[in-house]
């Protein structure tokens, strides 16, 4: 069964409990975020005669590694430090990593993160060791809004026909991510002209 994440953007409040739970579970150092909550904002105020109208919108996306079906990081890594389990989980072995950061260059989801202390890369591993013992990933357990789920990729796609690519996630055809997203209504208004990332300094490594 290929594992996937399901994310319902309609219910995500941006509380970042998933982000914090992940950091806590894996004892991640400062600056490393295996799961990141992106705040997409846009719109503005416009005057119309004596009145003001606004079309301001905002929504959140909780994104970790999407354990893609065609992982570009696996193809890129020269050390063979990234591998794919039979259940679709993409694992990065930091001990084999050179720290060349080539995987970070190519990943369209900023999943591999560089640790300046160890000079190696690391990324979300779907809490594989917990999954193997029948427990859910830390981020899924932590979400108070039940916006995050995990399970079979095909089952999610069948159960959520409303799911579709959401701005600013890239064309899923690039790497076929194991991620099913039910979009927030506001994402209909979002594109490169109308929306921007509101917390770039929080989610991107310097």
């Amino acid at each position, binding site marked *: 069964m290929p594992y996937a994440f399901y994310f319902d953007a309609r219910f995500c409040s941006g509380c970042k409990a998933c982000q914090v739970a992940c950091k806590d579970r894996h004892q991640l150092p400062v600056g490393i975020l295996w799961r990141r909550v992106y705040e997409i904002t846009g719109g503005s105020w416009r005057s119309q005669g004596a009145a003001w109208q606004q079309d301001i919108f905002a929504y959140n996306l909780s994104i970790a590694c999407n354990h893609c079906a065609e992982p570009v990081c696996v193809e*890129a*890594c*020269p050390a063979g430090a990234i591998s794919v389990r039979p259940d679709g989980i993409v694992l990065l072995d930091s001990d084999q990593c050179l720290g060349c*950061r080539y995987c970070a260059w190519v990943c369209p989801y900023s999943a591999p993160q560089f640790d300046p202390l160890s000079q190696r890369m690391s990324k979300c591993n779907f809490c594989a060791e917990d999954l193997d013992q029948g427990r859910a990933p830390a981020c899924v357990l932590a979400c108070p809004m039940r916006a995050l789920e995990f399970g079979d990729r095909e089952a999610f796609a069948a159960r959520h026909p409303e799911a579709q690519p959401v701005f600013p996630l890239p064309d899923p055809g690039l790497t076929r991510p194991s991620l099913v997203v039910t979009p927030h209504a506001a994402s209909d208004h979002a*594109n490169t002209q109308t929306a921007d990332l509101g917390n770039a300094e929080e*989610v991107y490594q310097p």
Partner: protein
Amino acid sequence: MKERSLVWFTLLAQASVGVFFGAVSLQLLAALALQIPRADRLMVDVRSAILMLTAFPLICLAFLISLAHLGAPRHAWKAMRNLGQSWLSREIVFGLLYALFLGLTAASYLFSSLFAATWFTAQAGAAICGLAFLYSMARVYMQRTILPWNSSRTLWSFLLTAASLGALVGALVLAVYEPEASWTRTAGTMYALTAALALAIQAFLRLWQVLRPARTNPLQPGQPRRQAPPAPRIGWVLACLLLAILTVLLAAWLPVLHWQLLLASLLLAVTAEAIARFGFYASYNRAGI
């Protein structure tokens, strides 16, 4: 992105391959076209040896500098473990093989009594591995998630850098040693014209990059794309390339090869390539978030 070490790695490696092919082409020219007097054949070997002995330290320096961009340089040997999928692994393997064969070739010139039998095999190996090295180097950057880099312009740019720098170094070496000998003059002119052509094509590619910039961030159907930002300092690149072309054409036109003009052209070309290469890395724009 720690691009400074990668800029110099790519430039030095491409210059090394270009200089190597400059030496090989001199031998081919001497054998097939130049009607060099038998007494002068040794001078061809000396020029080839000088070019080989220039190319070898360039590639060694390139690999040393490349270690600076690794987080764990002591594990650099592991970079060769994913030949099946990773163009970066292939680049490293072909680069090391090229350096090995080039070293054997250079050694065969220095210690002919020991390495004479390996001279041809080493040169053939270096030629094949050098081309594979350049191709792999370009493919490292031609990834489907990095749209500004994912075009044939990247490959052509790398090949033209090798051709222009190699031809300029070849012409310079010929100009330093007996520039008035007729065969030296002919070969030097051919190198200079090759360098001018390669630099002119580079200038065209840079101009094309400004007039038809790559699209960034392929988004979902229906979403508008963005144009890549203009390459930084493209004016400086074009100016240096134009001056390099003018000086090398002047050197080719004059009755005697002047090493000063060729050296000026080489320095201008290296400056242009360095600025353009920094601009290449600055144009990095990955799809997605």
